């Protein structure tokens, strides 16, 4: 009795009553136990629902005086009710509890949850019962591994997985070795799972790196030459370099590359870079064929734009007007031998399809079936015709496999892998005559002229083996060829392809004069026009080759029947001839150093043959690179990479947004105390580059000139110049003011770029040697103002080489050095640059305050004081008035403020730090080729010119570079490579 838990009340209904009456006196009118009418009850306001523990101060938690007598019956009855309730509460399990819950904590084990035998026996039954329902489902879902790996089932599974994102033909190969990412509607290998950063670089600069670029979309245009050129000329501009009409590419001998704009919008609204290839002319015909290769991200826009300029809006398969998602892939052309839409559903349901067919399924066709968000109707058009111009547009995405080999030895790899097709024996041809074979090669062999052409191509290919480095060839050379199935000459072991003895002989002078002459001719003139012809251009041949591919199984069977094991199959099976196109990719063409770095060959194949060529190439000792190697490749080439470095394109803007969210997520995953406080580092936007704001601000700075900065000694050079400059700018002010705030553009006008490049005094990296440039108009104010009226809101692609230490990172700031900084530089080239004074984070206190919600009122009066105090220190070092805006933006207390990041309405980006910001780095790394930190990025043209004018001659082109998470500025030399 005395041991009753007096301080605990269990207030559920009647159970409470009996007992408590005696002890706490909190009971209500319980009829039978009406011994003590509770007098304290009204005094007890704390009759809470639920458990109440401890001594209640104001309460009549419990009575002080002990009960004098108890009626046993009533008491027992009340207790029994209580016990019943308690038992009930104990036995009924709540939703989340598991059988393990019945065990005391120290006896629970994790493995118990999936192996009931680990439980004590008394609990096993219950556990089995509970787990039973789950297990049954699982069993139904997964078959045995053996069943799952059965060919047909595997195929079904693969097809299912391809429904969302397309797979390349080499997908399985890549998936085993690479980190795969889903991008642009494809599954692509990003980087290998093994370490290979340096080996890949070495492969690119010394041997050969292989990439699968089949995800690039090919759009085919057919029509009269002049009409095609007329429509395409709307998309490009001559100012930005060679266009579709460039004579050499038009002949079909070279691959060209252009920047495509929306029709007639030249400096603004660029779509993106594309490469193109004309099919060589056939005699007496003006009908031409053109392939445009574009990144999948711009395919949709490009296709729409092409349809507008060519007036091709009649889809050949009528129903839906060409609203095509970029993920789409589709090659249902009119004269296709097997209509795909018919075939696909069939192979899906029937698991036991023929091996050959299913093999094809795994690679090409089924990928076409699926769209981004569901199955595409097979009637979606892929061909558009124009009645007025007669132009036909074909969407050849995934129809042609494209491999890229990068590196000086890539032609040796090709030479070892591919062999020009052998002709068919006469004997076999006779047999074929009777069948009138369905294969294309025997048919071709009958035609004398075609065989002549093949012979010539094979000769050129043979000469090609004689050169030593890929970079020696005319850039962009095209060679058409027909080759034997490379699987037939697969080495038994992986070997490293080296320049063949032929090349060695050439250099030793052992080769006949004739060969030497031919080689020289090839180097000078390139491949002659008719040799650029390939049957890969013909739809019918492509399909024939794809359909008649010998399956791996069949090939192995044939190999096993060879008399001498391991010897070559002879004669070569008739199906084993493939038309291909070899396209030379120029390496680094801009700038003065490392020229031709990263040159290589592109190999174009008909679809379905991807793996048949991939494995033999891999067996020649090449390295395989993923998407991140493409990025490194273009970085070493100093070329902008699409879509990373195209801030004026829609794709580029989109990419930047994606990148920002990704980086921000990564940043937020760190605990706040471990994050970099970018505010303290004076970095406004570490995850993105507000280009638009930058360009506008520079425009403003130049326009407003030096009024605000007069008398401020710190940026002496800039100030004086600006004041002077103002007078001239005012003359142009009317122009600039009336101009509506335009969008930024990237400067691509070659003439202007060349001018700007000359003004920057191009040097090799580290500024060692000044390269000679042509005579330029001297850089003075009048020249700059006239330049700026033309390209006011522009950005320009620059390369920055660090002079001494430092590794630039993504979104590092490019800043203008002050006069004192340049003095520092004069002392020695090794000087390590100035420091940025640390900034104060006056958002920190605000975030803290927000967390202490209730106290806010008390500190609110304080906050206004601190605000005024804190905003001053950073601006102390800055000579400009724009920082006074900072506090203005800060009071907006947004709920989603992130510690260490500047909240959204950014203050002036140019003048936030002690040095004016010119731009940001978009690709930065230690460059293995230059041996120093190397950054690529954009700077504002207005800002750059202003800086250059004000710099003394000996230091012209010196800028500062600062990483977002560092306070240290590093000297860098700017180079604009044209």
């Amino acid at each position, binding site marked *: 009795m005395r041991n009753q838990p007096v301080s605990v009340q269990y207030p559920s209904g009647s159970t409470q009553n009996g007992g408590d009456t005696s002890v706490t006196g909190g009971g209500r009118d319980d009829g039978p136990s009406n011994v003590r009418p509770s007098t304290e009850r009204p005094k007890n306001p704390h009759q809470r629902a639920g458990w109440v523990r401890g001594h209640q101060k104001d309460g009549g938690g419990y009575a002080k005086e002990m009960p004098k007598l108890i009626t046993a019956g009533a008491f027992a009855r009340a207790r029994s009710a209580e016990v019943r309730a308690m038992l009930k509460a104990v036995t009924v399990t709540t939703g989340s509890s598991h059988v393990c819950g019945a065990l005391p904590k120290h006896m629970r084990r994790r493995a118990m949850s999936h192996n009931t035998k680990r439980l004590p026996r008394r609990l096993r039954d219950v556990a089995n019962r509970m787990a039973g329902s789950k297990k049954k489902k699982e069993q139904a879902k997964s078959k045995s591994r053996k069943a799952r790996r059965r060919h047909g089932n595997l195929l079904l599974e693969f097809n299912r997985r391809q429904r969302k994102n397309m797979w390349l033909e080499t997908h399985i190969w890549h998936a085993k070795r690479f980190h795969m990412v889903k991008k642009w509607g494809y599954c692509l290998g990003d980087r290998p799972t093994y370490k290979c950063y340096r080996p890949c670089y070495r492969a690119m600069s010394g041997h050969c790196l292989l990439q699968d670029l089949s995800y690039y979309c090919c759009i085919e245009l057919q029509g009269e030459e002049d009409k095609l050129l007329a429509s395409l000329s709307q998309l490009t501009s001559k100012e930005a370099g060679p*266009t579709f*009409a*460039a004579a050499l590419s038009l002949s079909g001998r070279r691959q060209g590359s252009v920047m495509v704009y929306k029709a007639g919008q030249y400096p603004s609204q660029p779509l993106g870079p594309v490469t193109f290839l004309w099919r060589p002319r056939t005699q007496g015909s003006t009908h031409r064929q053109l392939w445009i290769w574009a990144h999948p991200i711009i395919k949709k826009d490009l296709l729409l734009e092409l349809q507008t300029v060519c007036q091709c809006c009649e889809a050949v398969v009528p129903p839906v007007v060409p609203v095509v998602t970029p993920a789409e892939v589709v090659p249902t052309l009119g004269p296709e031998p097997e209509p795909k839409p018919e075939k696909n559903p069939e192979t899906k349901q029937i698991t036991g399809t023929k091996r050959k067919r299913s093999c094809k399924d795994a690679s090409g066709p089924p990928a076409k079936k699926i769209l981004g968000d569901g199955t595409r109707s097979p009637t979606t058009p892929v061909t558009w015709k124009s009645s007025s111009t007669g132009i036909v547009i074909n969407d050849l995405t995934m129809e042609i496999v494209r491999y890229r080999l990068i590196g000086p030895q890539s032609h040796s790899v090709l030479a070892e892998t591919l062999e020009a097709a052998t002709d068919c024996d006469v004997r076999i041809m006779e047999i074929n005559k009777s069948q009138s074979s369905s294969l294309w090669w025997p048919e071709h062999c009958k035609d004398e002229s075609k065989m002549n052409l093949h012979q010539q191509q094979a000769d050129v290919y043979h000469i090609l083996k004689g050169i030593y480095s890929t970079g*020696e060839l005319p850039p962009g050379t095209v060679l058409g060829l027909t080759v034997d199935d490379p699987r037939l000459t697969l080495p038994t072991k992986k070997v490293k392809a080296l320049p063949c003895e032929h090349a060695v002989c050439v*250099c030793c*002078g052992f080769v006949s004069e004739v060969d030497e002459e031919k080689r*020289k001719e090839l180097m000078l003139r390139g491949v002659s026009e008719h040799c650029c012809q390939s049957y890969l251009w013909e739809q019918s041949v492509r399909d024939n080759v794809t359909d008649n591919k010998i399956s791996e199984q069949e090939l192995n069977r044939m190999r096993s029947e060879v008399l001498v094991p391991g010897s070559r199959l002879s004669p070569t099976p008739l199906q084993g001839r493939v038309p291909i196109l070899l396209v030379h990719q120029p390496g680094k063409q801009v700038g003065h150093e490392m*020229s*031709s770095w990263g040159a290589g060959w592109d190999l174009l194949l008909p679809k379905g043959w991807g793996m048949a060529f991939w494995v033999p190439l891999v067996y020649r000792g090449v390295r395989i690179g993923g998407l991140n190697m493409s990025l490194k490749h273009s970085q070493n080439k100093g070329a902008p990479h699409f879509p990373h470095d195209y801030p004026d394109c829609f794709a580029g803007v989109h990419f930047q947004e994606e990148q920002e969210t990704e980086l921000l997520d990564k940043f937020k995953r760190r605990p706040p105390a471990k994050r970099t406080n970018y505010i303290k580092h004076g970095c406004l936007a570490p995850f993105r580059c507000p280009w638009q704001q930058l360009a506008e601000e520079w425009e403003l700075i130049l326009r407003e000139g030096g009024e605000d900065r007069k008398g401020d000694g710190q940026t002496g050079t800039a100030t004086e110049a600006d004041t002077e400059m103002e007078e001239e700018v005012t003359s142009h002010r009317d122009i600039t003011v009336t101009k509506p705030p335009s969008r930024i553009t990237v400067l691509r006008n070659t003439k202007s770029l060349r001018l700007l490049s000359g003004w920057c005094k191009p040097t090799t990296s580290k500024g060692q*040697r000044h390269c000679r440039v042509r005579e330029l108009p001297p850089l003075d104010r009048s020249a700059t103002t006239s330049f700026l009226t033309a390209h006011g809101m522009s950005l320009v692609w620059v390369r920055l080489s660090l002079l001494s230490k430092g590794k630039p990172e993504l979104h590092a700031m490019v800043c203008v050095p002050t006069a004192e900084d340049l003095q520092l530089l004069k002392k020695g080239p090794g000087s390590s640059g100035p420091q940025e004074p640390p900034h104060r984070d006056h958002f920190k206190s605000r975030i803290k305050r927000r967390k202490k919600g209730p106290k806010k009122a008390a500190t609110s009066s304080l906050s206004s004081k601190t605000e005024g105090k804190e905003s001053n220190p950073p601006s102390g070092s800055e000579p400009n008035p724009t920082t006074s805006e900072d506090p203005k933006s800060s009071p907006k207390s947004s709920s989603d403020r992130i510690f260490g990041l500047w909240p959204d309405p950014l203050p002036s980006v140019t003048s936030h730090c002690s040095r004016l910001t010119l731009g940001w780095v978009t690709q930065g790394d230690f460059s293995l080729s230059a041996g120093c930190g190397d950054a690529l990025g954009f700077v504002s043209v207005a800002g750059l010119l202003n800086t250059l004018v004000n710099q003394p001659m000996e230091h012209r082109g010196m800028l500062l570079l600062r990483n977002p998470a560092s306070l240290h500025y590093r000297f860098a030399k700017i180079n604009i490579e044209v």
Partner: protein
Amino acid sequence: MTEPRNPGMSSVPQTAPVHTDSSSAAVEMDPVEYTLRKRLPRKLPKRRNDVYVNMKTDFRAQLARCQKLLEGGGHREICVHGLGLAINRAINIALQLQASSQGVLQLAANTSTVELVDDLEPEDPDEAGEPMTRTRNNSAIHIKVFYPDPQ
């Protein structure tokens, strides 16, 4: 290519030396109309003991590399190649090697001519039509630095 050369003897310095003598030639080509792009000189196979001298790398580093080959690398002879502007430096390196060996090393110099290829791309490709390619010659030197045989 006027004389028979030893195997592996040719000139493959980096592009730097190539620039120097070519820009004078470019002036004749009416620089407004064409952009000059130089192709790489012919690369040739390279043995372990071939050293191609360029103007980009630090002189001391190149000298140290040669010394390492001769002393640590166990080669009895090395070939130092230089093209164009780098001829001077190649000679310098060879002489330095000889001087530092107290006259034990001997030199044997060969000269040759290397054919280089330039591409001339018209600035306005649609009008001018054909881009041009031309060849020009440049001198090269190949110095054999070796320990003479004992007999």
